[in-house]
């Protein structure tokens, strides 16, 4: 089974349909082997209409190069990808990173909102990952 991603510029992405409780929609996930958890960022959380009340605070802190952010967990999220078999459905927890946008200057908020959601190792490592920018090949495989 093969899930094919796409390069946009030099960055590898996968399109995924997410469903959690009453919320569902499509997201563009940056494949990020540096991220331990698949994580939705501010723009997508807002776009999907997931309210703060639906977010369960994570038991572990989340930190990146830019510092720490508020972290939450969405339990048992159904993630659907297009594959060569039609569709592939995974179910797993997905993390949510929330910046405190109300306390930041507008230009910084705009930059933060540009950050894509990421596909982390918790998902990537369920597959064999092929990332070959020079040939334009980006895919997740498993037998």
């Amino acid at each position, binding site marked *: 089974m093969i899930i094919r991603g*796409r390069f*946009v*510029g030099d960055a590898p*992405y996968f*399109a*995924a*349909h997410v469903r959690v409780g009453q*919320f*569902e*929609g*499509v997201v*563009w996930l*940056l494949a*990020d082997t*540096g*991220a331990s958890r698949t994580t939705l960022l501010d*723009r997508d959380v*807002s*776009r*999907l*209409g997931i309210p703060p009340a639906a977010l369960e605070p994570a038991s572990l802190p989340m930190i*990146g*190069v830019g510092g720490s952010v508020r972290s939450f967990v969405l339990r048992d999220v159904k993630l*659907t*990808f*297009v594959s060569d078999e*039609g*569709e592939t459905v995974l179910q797993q927890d997905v993390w949510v990173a929330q910046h405190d946008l109300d306390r930041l200057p507008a230009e910084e908020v*705009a*930059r933060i*909102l*540009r*950050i894509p959601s*990421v596909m982390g190792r918790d998902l990537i490592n369920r597959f064999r990952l092929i990332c070959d920018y020079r040939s334009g090949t980006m895919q997740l495989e498993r037998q």
Partner: protein
Amino acid sequence: MMNEGVIEELRTFEEDQVWISDHIESLLGRYTDQWVAVQGGQIVASDPALDALWQKLPDPAHTCVEFVTREPLEMIL
């Protein structure tokens, strides 16, 4: 059972993401520093403020949305 609707939606969403990247120069001429919403390779809404853009969209959760800007941004996630 296969969900053809979801598969088609994912393919369209992916094409829209790539479309923005492929057309970024022409988009910069008209939508600099604005959020744009794209469906089926067409701009369906734009606004400098993301919250305002949501109000213009009937279904943001199923719409490709990106920021059009000349500001370079290096990302180390």
